[in-house]
């Protein structure tokens, strides 16, 4: 079975373009929500706390979902070069996704649901008059629908990978560890890891969402709050982590085309990804370090795996990226610059993340703005930069372009704004400013005001990048 003859049209298929376009638009909207939240905390906008928390819920779930969709676009596009994916499943996923989004947004903005995107049990059932149980059900049902679509998507990926490579053992490259022969491409390894962990995460998510839906209508059937929290964070942590693992495929695939060097798969790379597969499923207890009732071994495991899970893949990707561009005569344009920036953002974000995974630090940092600080580094400056690069790459017919002055200006605006924005979060966390509060104490307000300035920079530069890229994507491809 020759891999080469499976390669379809070299340019992105319709479903990838639609995914990319929707991701671009929704990201902008969610960024605006973020800006509005920071301006409200900076007392620059007269938004009521009720609306603030609705926006916060929408921003959280919207960004998670859209990072998932954008990452899926990257994975679908490049995985499709190695295995035979059927477009019907991408469309089915999109249909479930959109139906779910309608329900989620309805629950939030019509029903008033505002229990944060983590829907921590039993808050959805305790709206205190802000929302009713139907609103909570719409939200959780919507998330469930998105999960069903994603399950279909990953089942198709699993099917295609297994059909091509025989089993996940092969597509993860375990035979390569023994024989040193026949390594699967980096894209296939990353896709296999994401497929495995996300199928598991979605099933766990389905379990806890169903239980909470039942509890909503039959309150006598109670759930143990600590168990519920474990399941929610297992689901949420794995899902959000895998968005980066999907999006990073863009770096593996696109950057080599700019440098003329290949992204070689070597044994540590295979080791690191396989280890990640296991560790990402067991690292979530670092979110529960302040739940003292949790068994001690889980706390200790949470701290240790926090250190071991993030570092290997990152260290390898980081050095490989730097090695790829060093003295390579790389052609710089918006795409390649964003991709390199994204690896910086991802790496930079891991540092405060791992530090916060230390129990002693978590004791004074948990649920402060330190937390959004670290994840905005690797989601905004990392994952989003990857997705923006991918969208831009698609719009340029997947070729390197010139680096216009406007491109340069937008790149630097985005890089500096996003970086500073995240640093202000970290700085506020260092000053013990809590996260998820509509109103801050007077001495904390200036942080939000400064952050709003840089948030505006992020919104502005992303808007220019996305709008220009969308124009390129929508434009019909000229026959060569």
């Amino acid at each position: 079975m020759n891999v080469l003859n499976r390669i379809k049209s070299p340019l992105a298929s319709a479903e990838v373009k639609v995914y990319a376009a929707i991701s671009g638009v929704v990201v902008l909207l969610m960024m605006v929500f973020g800006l509005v939240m920071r301006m409200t905390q900076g007392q620059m906008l007269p938004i009521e706390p009720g609306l603030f928390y609705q926006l916060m819920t929408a921003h959280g779930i919207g960004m998670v979902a859209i990072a998932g969709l954008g990452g899926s676009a990257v994975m679908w596009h490049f995985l499709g070069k190695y295995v035979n994916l059927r477009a019907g499943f991408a469309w089915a996923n999109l249909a479930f996704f959109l139906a779910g989004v309608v329900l989620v947004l309805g629950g939030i903005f019509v029903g008033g649901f505002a229990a944060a995107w983590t829907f921590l049990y039993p808050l959805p059932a305790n709206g205190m008059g802000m929302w009713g149980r139907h609103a909570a059900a719409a939200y959780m049902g919507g998330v469930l629908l998105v999960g069903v679509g994603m399950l279909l998507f990953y089942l198709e990926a699993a099917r295609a990978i297994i059909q091509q490579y025989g089993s996940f053992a092969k597509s993860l490259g375990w035979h390569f560890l023994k024989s040193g022969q026949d390594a699967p491409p980096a894209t296939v390894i990353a896709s296999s890891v994401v497929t495995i962990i996300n199928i598991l995460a979605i099933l766990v998510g389905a379990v806890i969402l169903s239980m909470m839906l039942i509890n909503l209508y039959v309150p006598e059937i109670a759930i143990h709050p600590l168990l519920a929290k474990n399941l929610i964070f297992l689901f949420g942590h794995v899902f959000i982590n895998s968005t980066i693992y999907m999006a990073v495929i863009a770096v593996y695939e696109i950057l080599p085309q700019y440098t003329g060097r290949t992204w070689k798969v070597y044994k540590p790379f295979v080791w690191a990804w396989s280890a990640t597969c296991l560790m990402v499923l067991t690292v979530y207890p670092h979110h529960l370090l302040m739940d003292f009732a949790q068994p001690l071994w889980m706390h200790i495991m949470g701290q240790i795996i926090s250190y071991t899970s993030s570092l290997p893949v990152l260290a390898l990707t980081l050095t490989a990226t730097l090695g790829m561009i060093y003295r390579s005569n790389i052609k710089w344009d918006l795409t390649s610059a964003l991709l390199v920036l994204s690896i910086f953002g991802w790496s930079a974000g891991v540092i405060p993340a791992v530090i916060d995974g230390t129990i002693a630090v978590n004791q004074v940092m948990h649920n402060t703005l330190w937390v959004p600080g670290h994840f905005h580094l690797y989601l905004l400056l990392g994952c989003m930069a990857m997705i923006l690069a991918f969208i831009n790459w698609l719009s340029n017919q997947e070729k390197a372009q010139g680096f216009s002055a406007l491109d340069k200006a937008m790149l630097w605006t985005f890089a500096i704004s996003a970086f500073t924005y995240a640093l202000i979060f970290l700085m506020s966390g260092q000053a013990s400013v809590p996260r998820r509060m509509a109103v801050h104490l007077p001495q904390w307000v200036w942080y939000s005001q400064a952050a709003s300035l840089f948030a505006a920079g992020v919104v502005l530069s992303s808007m220019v990048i996305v709008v220009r890229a969308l124009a390129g994507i929508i434009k019909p491809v000229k026959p060569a």
Partner: protein
Amino acid sequence: MKTLLASVIVVLLGVWAVASMSEGFELLTSEQARRLDIQRRQPVVPNVRLTDQSGGAHRFGDWVQAQNKFLIVDFIYTNCQSLCRALGSEFQQLQRNIVERGLQNRVHLLSISFDPEHDSYAVLGQYANHLQANPEVWSFAAPASADLEILLQTFGVTVIPDQTGGFQHNAALVWVAPSGKLLRVTDYASGEQLLDELVKSN
């Protein structure tokens, strides 16, 4: 296409079946169904023979109407080690509350034993003493064995023997109007709240 059509039919059938079993997704257990059913139908208490803790014999229906009070009924057996104790202390609490608020003339508590073989009036009397029940507020009674079935059925109580020689039964408070109609069934810990409602309603 045919598969799609068939699948849609299957899903619709499934949803219909689940919906009818759960009364439109409102309930999942027969306990909830029983409560909803009683609240909707409001059946009248059966006119069965009851013997109270002092040996007096009554007809249940007549007795309720003669009393002309709201009745809070629970079902117990005196050998009970678990649930009935919770019920017992809840009733003690309610008894205090009723006396404090001076509601003796409007509300009466009634514990009915579903183990008439064992719970003779003498046994019930001891049990009442043990719980410091005030006869003005709180009565105990057991039906004649032959009438047990119909009584349990009306109140929707299911009793099953367990391995240790006792019984497991669903525990709840049943609210009976002075007219003898069953109004509603609530959790055994919800008595106070309902007293509040009763006070507010006048």
